[in-house]
């Protein structure tokens, strides 16, 4: 029983989930909203890729990916514009129900278009090749995902901590009203946050679906939930936390499969979520915020 293969694959799924988890943690940081539809956006970007490659066979793969990423960002923007911003002042529950409604709509729309059958993700040239690394034979994307996730995180953290726009995002996440008073255009910041989240989801979907090539309308549900758990475990609102949380969840699930607890892999991640929520609701990296009466 050698652990390496399970660890590597655990890190891989962790890395792929991390990109989606960052989307959750950023949107929650800004809007205090669980963007239920984010998992579905991840699935939609996979489906978009299939239809782009099928309908525009002449388009080189690199361009196809960029077109898909652009479309995903646009959809993310639309979701925020039509489903969330009209409810900006609405009670918390109706915004959440709207998020659930969007995720339900995306699932049913894709199921209608694809007829419910699972479609094959096109082969991605470089990262799709099988490669032998440390005695394990698997697709390059498996070994690449954690690295790409960490690199993107570092870039994102630099943007947030060292650019004017990053400061605006941090301000908005700390206090909505005051940052509005300070002249920050709230809606622009929120739209851009959604756009970044959508872009990362698109990147994550290319890495993830290059490995798990069968996609149907339900392929977004499980990764979406796992990514959210990762965001909570890592400390909601903290981007590095989301990545570390995702790596932990990925490895935990793979190890469960290694030790024959395959049936429990789902149960373990949800168990982890409930334990973290109760013991340390702010997660590993999150800071404590006292509720002012």
């Amino acid at each position: 029983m050698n652990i390496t293969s399970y660890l590597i694959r655990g890190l891989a799924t962790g890395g792929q989930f991390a990109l989606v988890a960052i989307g959750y943690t950023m949107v929650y940081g800004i809007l205090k909203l669980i963007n239920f539809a984010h998992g579905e956006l991840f699935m939609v970007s996979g489906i978009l890729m299939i239809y782009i490659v099928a309908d525009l066979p002449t388009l080189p793969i690199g361009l196809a990916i960029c077109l898909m990423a652009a479309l995903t960002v646009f959809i993310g923007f639309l979701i925020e514009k039509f489903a969330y911003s009209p409810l900006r002042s609405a009670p918390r529950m109706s915004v959440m129900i709207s998020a659930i409604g969007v995720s339900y709509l995306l699932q049913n729309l894709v199921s209608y278009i694809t007829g419910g059958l699972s479609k094959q993700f096109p082969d991605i040239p470089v990262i799709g090749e099988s490669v032998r690394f440390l005695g394990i034979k698997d697709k390059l994307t498996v070994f690449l995902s954690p690295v790409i996730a960490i690199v993107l995180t570092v870039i994102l953290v630099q943007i947030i901590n060292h650019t004017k726009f990053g400061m605006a995002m941090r301000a908005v996440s700390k206090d909505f009203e005051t940052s509005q008073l300070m002249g920050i255009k709230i809606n622009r910041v929120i739209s851009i946050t959604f756009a970044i989240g959508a872009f990362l989801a698109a990147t994550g979907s290319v890495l993830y679906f290059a490995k798990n090539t069968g996609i149907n309308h339900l392929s977004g549900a499980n990764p979406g939930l796992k990514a959210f758990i990762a965001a909570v475990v890592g400390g909601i609102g903290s981007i590095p936390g989301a990545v570390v949380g995702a790596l932990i969840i990925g490895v935990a699930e793979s190890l469960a499969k290694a030790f024959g607890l395959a049936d429990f892999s789902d149960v373990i991640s949800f168990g982890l979520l409930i334990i973290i929520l109760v013991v340390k609701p702010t997660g590993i990296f999150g800071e404590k915020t006292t509720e002012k009466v």
Partner: protein
Amino acid sequence: MWEKNKRTICNLILVGLIIVLLICIDTFAPATSMWFSVLRKVCTFALAAVSMNLLNGFTGLFSLGQAGFMLLGAYTYAIFTIPVNMRSNVFRNYGDSVIRFQMPLVLALILAGIVAAFFAFLIGLPVLRLKSDYLAIATLGFAEIVRGLVQLQSFGPVTNGPDPINMFTAPKSIMVYAAISGISILIIVLMINSTYGRAFKAIRDDEIAAEAMGINLAHHKRLSFVISSFFCGIAGAMMAMCNTSVSSVSFTTSMTYQILLVVVIGGIGSISGSIIAAFIFYASSEWWLKFLDLETYTKAGSKVPLLGPGFRMVVFSVLIMIIVLFFRQGIMGTREISVYDGIMKIRSVFVKDKAKGGESHE
């Protein structure tokens, strides 16, 4: 007597009429009519929606664990009502069932509720302290955990593992479903109109003020959570009766989303709203709007655009988004149906016409 509770009397008359209508359908409708399977589902999901409304709508606790509690109720009911001689057949892959006896229907129903309530109490201890969106995700996680655990091979002798359970008592007549659902909803309505109901609404409106008025938040939240799960368990048992076979595969999060959307359509905080919405949602999705899924061809043989498998669900999801965004109150908002006020309003519309018409000669 009339003056004091005229509204309740009118509403009781309405309920009486509905019961008579149901009896007619039950006896006279041809055995094959769609009314049977539709009304059975409507009664089941009306109770599920009302019990979710008790929690989300009246106590302000946003929980997404309904599928988990319904699963517990369905499994408990199914396991305890399989005739003794059929047990080994159903539990074929796991030797035989641990339970050796068969329970009468009513007892099994109550047990289904109790089992769901017991698990609600357990999960409630850690989870009810959480803020609303975390509570939603934690209860969603709980439902997934329950679904995962029930399917385990090691639990085979108790829950038949991943194999479906069938052969249990599944009544056919609508009156059984209407009775169970009716009594349960009546109990919930009585509770909401009691002093405890007011305490729940206080918690929904303003937790800090409620606590300052001496309402113990932990105790009342747990009470509402456990009672809502009790009736969710009974709704789960009714769902087992509807489908005549129970397998954990059908208790997915999308079922919880459907119940939530029924509550939203009906109006969060309105019991009659949930019942009306359950009827509209399930009657149309199971029957009236079924044609949306069938590829139909016009006489000229050309395919009617858009219609095809899955289109019905797309129409539903768009409809629900419209309701969530523009009609946040849903059909009834937080108002309850009142026949008396309805009649008065209609009468006043007529009276006004007469008055307008009669103005000339006064």
